[in-house]
Structure formats: structure tokens, C-alpha cells
């Protein structure tokens, strides 16, 4: 069997993303490097053949998923209740955690101006965030970070897929220098 056939069979049978090392377990002769190569070969082949599916990277893992343009056809078969979308409040906290991790609850609440307790519980339940450590401050607060499930849920390869801060319409923090004159806002260099 060729490596790409083994990888293809394994991905086809899997309902969750598999990492290269997990895929390599399919055969003793298969190295992670060969798995990566095989995935590249398969991806090109699917692309060239115009297949309705492709191998997508979600976090560390690879998964065989249909192409988005086929969603309308498949949705007709949609009998499974889909997981509900995250609420705006949950997304807000998640966005802050994604960019500022590791971060504690108090800092999240400072940005949002509202309590984050229940939202954090939701995100923990969804396994989109996890406790990654404890802060130095009073009471050694829990610090949160995003998980592999977070990348999977949003279809990201890594946190690098999120737009860098300066690409967003509003730059994080105050402007570099106060725009001309009296009404200007001071820069706050302490805010990273």
C-alpha cells in the first residue's frame, strides 16, 4: 500500500481531526514526515480532480471535510441538532482570551466592562478554553488560554490564523500620538 492510500483510508474513516503522529500509527513503516507528504499529495490530487472534499488542517490535526459549496446539499439531510452558536458575550470573552492569553477573569472583565463568570464556565464546558496556570496577583487567580478545540471549532490551523492586531480596523490601544490639538487622547504605552 502506498502511504497516501493508508492516510486516505484513515482520514476517510475518522470523524475527528487526526494529527500526523496519530495517522502514522496506521502502519509501522509510516513516519510523520511521510504522512505530511502524503497529505500534500492527496490535497493536490483532490484539487486537480475537483473532488467535493478536501483535507483541512484544524489545529494540529487533519480531517477530510466537504468543500463549503456543498453545504446546501448536505444541509437537506440535517437531522442532527447542530451545536448552538456561541453567544456574542461568549465570543467577546473568547476573543479577548485568544489575543491576551494567558489571562485572568478580572482582566477579561476590565475589557468587557461586564462580568465574565458565567461566560467562562460556558467556554470551559465547550472546551474552547482551559486553565493554563495561575497568576502572580492576589489569590493567585486562574489564567485561561485557548485549546485545540478552539482552533477546531473555528477552523483555524493556529492562533496565527487570527488577524494580527494591526490588520483590524481599530488598532488595539490608543493611537500613537494624539491627533492634532486639544481634544487628543494620550497614548497609553502601558497597555500592551
Amino acid at each position: 500500500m502506498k502511504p497516501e492510500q493508508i492516510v486516505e483510508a484513515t482520514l476517510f474513516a475518522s470523524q475527528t481531526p487526526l494529527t500526523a503522529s496519530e495517522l502514522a500509527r496506521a502502519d509501522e513503516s509510516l513516519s510523520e514526515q511521510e504522512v505530511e507528504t502524503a497529505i500534500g499529495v492527496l490535497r493536490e490530487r483532490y484539487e486537480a480532480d475537483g473532488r467535493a472534499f478536501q483535507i483541512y488542517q484544524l489545529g494540529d490535526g487533519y480531517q477530510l471535510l466537504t468543500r463549503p459549496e456543498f453545504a446546501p446539499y448536505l444541509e437537506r439531510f440535517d437531522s442532527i441538532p447542530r451545536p448552538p452558536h456561541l453567544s456574542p458575550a461568549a465570543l467577546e470573552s473568547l476573543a479577548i482570551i485568544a489575543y491576551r492569553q494567558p489571562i485572568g477573569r478580572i482582566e477579561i472583565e476590565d475589557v468587557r466592562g461586564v462580568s465574565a463568570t458565567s461566560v467562562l464556565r460556558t467556554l470551559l464546558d465547550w472546551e474552547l478554553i482551559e486553565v493554563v496556570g495561575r497568576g502572580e496577583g492576589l489569590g493567585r487567580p486562574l489564567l485561561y488560554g485557548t485549546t485545540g478545540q478552539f482552533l477546531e471549532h473555528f477552523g483555524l490551523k493556529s492562533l496565527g490564523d487570527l488577524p494580527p492586531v494591526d490588520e483590524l480596523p481599530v488598532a488595539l490601544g490608543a493611537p500613537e500620538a494624539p491627533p492634532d490639538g486639544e481634544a487628543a487622547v494620550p497614548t497609553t504605552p502601558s497597555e500592551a
Partner: protein
Amino acid sequence: MIASAAARPPDSPIGIGGESFVVELDRFQGPLDLLIHLIRSQDIDIFDIPIAHITRQFLQAIEGGLDRMPLERAGEFIEMSATLVRIKAQMLLPRPEKFEWEEDPRAELVRRLLEYEHFQDVVHVLQTAEAQRGRHMAKGYIEARPAPVIARPSLQVTLEELLQAAARIPEPLPPVSFRAPTATVTVGEKVSLLRRLIGKTKRVALDRLFKPWGTRAHAVAALLAALEMARQQVVRIEQTRPFSPIWLFASGRREGDAGPGEAASGAGTAIGEAAGERGGE
């Protein structure tokens, strides 16, 4: 105070004052969200927020809505109101000219608003990503048909295994007859027994009180008797270190004349006397 400082006409495009606006308060994530909305919907320069104007609008917006909110959420809006009023008050104070830009009381608020807006943008990015991800279906998206329910034995065994299992079943035990001890043992009896023992030997190991009888009622009564006597300060209960034997001493006289062995034998004798009613073994 609010009215006196309000130089701008209340030309809000969002219909402030009506109940409809109050209801819409639920739509906002929190005070920052509401402020951003007030500022952006009126094309206000975020770097030059007319604080008096915005403060009045903010207060009007949350007025009436607070009652319907959970206390914690209402508190968040009230806190922002206080911040706005404080900023407004600070702006009314004369400021030294040369430090003007450093001391704009609005600066911190503007920083927070911009930061909040930034993360709103990230929220949109995440929402888009979530929606896009939802358009990629994985294996299993179309639900598998429920597995047919096959009436098969859930456990399969060979005859040999069955016989082996049968062989492991122990012989039925001979019928055991229990005789409930009818005699009751009172704490009082044990107290007098203990008194006798202590009087004779000056000290008794606590476990020696339990061992000879073997029934629970006796052990409980003996323990209660010991505790009762300790409470009455007839005996002193001591233990040299955790889990070591517990000793009862005649109160006030630590040095017993007799050793524990003798105490035990004494106890044994006493039991012989007192335990004529002993049932069971």
C-alpha cells in the same frame, strides 16, 4: 448637575426617552457596548466625546431598564454612569494648560472604548470563521441509521467456561442460626466494673475492656462507661502518641502498681463474673 452642564441639544437619533429604547437595552452586551453605540450612531468623534451629551443620553437609556435587569448587570451600567459623571465633573475643573493632553479625563474611557471596539472586530472575525467552519461537513454529518436491535445474547460463553464458573460457586454454607442476645448490658454495669478494675489495678488498657466480650453492645457500653467516668474525672484517659494504646488511669494516681498484663487478667476475671449472660460465641 446633568441638566446644567448639558449645552448640546438632545438631538439623539435613537429615540431616547421612549419605552422602546429601554427594551432594547437587552441588546447591548454591557455599558461599553451601549456607549459605543451612542457614539458611533451619532458620528461622534471618539477622541472628542461630548461627555455631558453622552452622559445624559446614557442615563436616559438605562433609566427604567435597570429595574428589569439582574442586579449584577444593573450594577455594571450604574458603575459606568458614575464614571461618566466623574469625567464630566473633572472636565469642568480648570486644568493647567501645559499638561492638558495628559490630563484629559476622558482618556482612560476612550482607551477602553477603542479596546472594546477592537475586540468587537475580533468577535466578527470569529463569527465569520465559525460560520465558514460550519459549511465544512465531516464524516458522520448525515446521521448513521440506528443500529438494528438484534436479539442476541449479550454474553457468549462456552460450555467449559460455564462449567468452570459453576465449579467456582461455593458449597452452600450450613444454615447459621443466630441467637439474638436478650440480655441487655447497661452503661451503669460497665461503670461499676470499670470502677472495680481501676480500683484494683489503677490503670487499664482501653482495648482490654472490649476484647473479652465480643459483642458490640458490650463494647459500646464499655466505651460509654469509660467516657462517662472520664467526664466525672474518676479516670483519666491518656494516649502517648497517635494510634498507640489508650490507657485509663485512676484519677490523680498516675503510677499504677500493677502492669497491664495483670489488669487484663483482672479484667478477664471480672468478665467471667459479669458476663454470664454473654450470648453468641
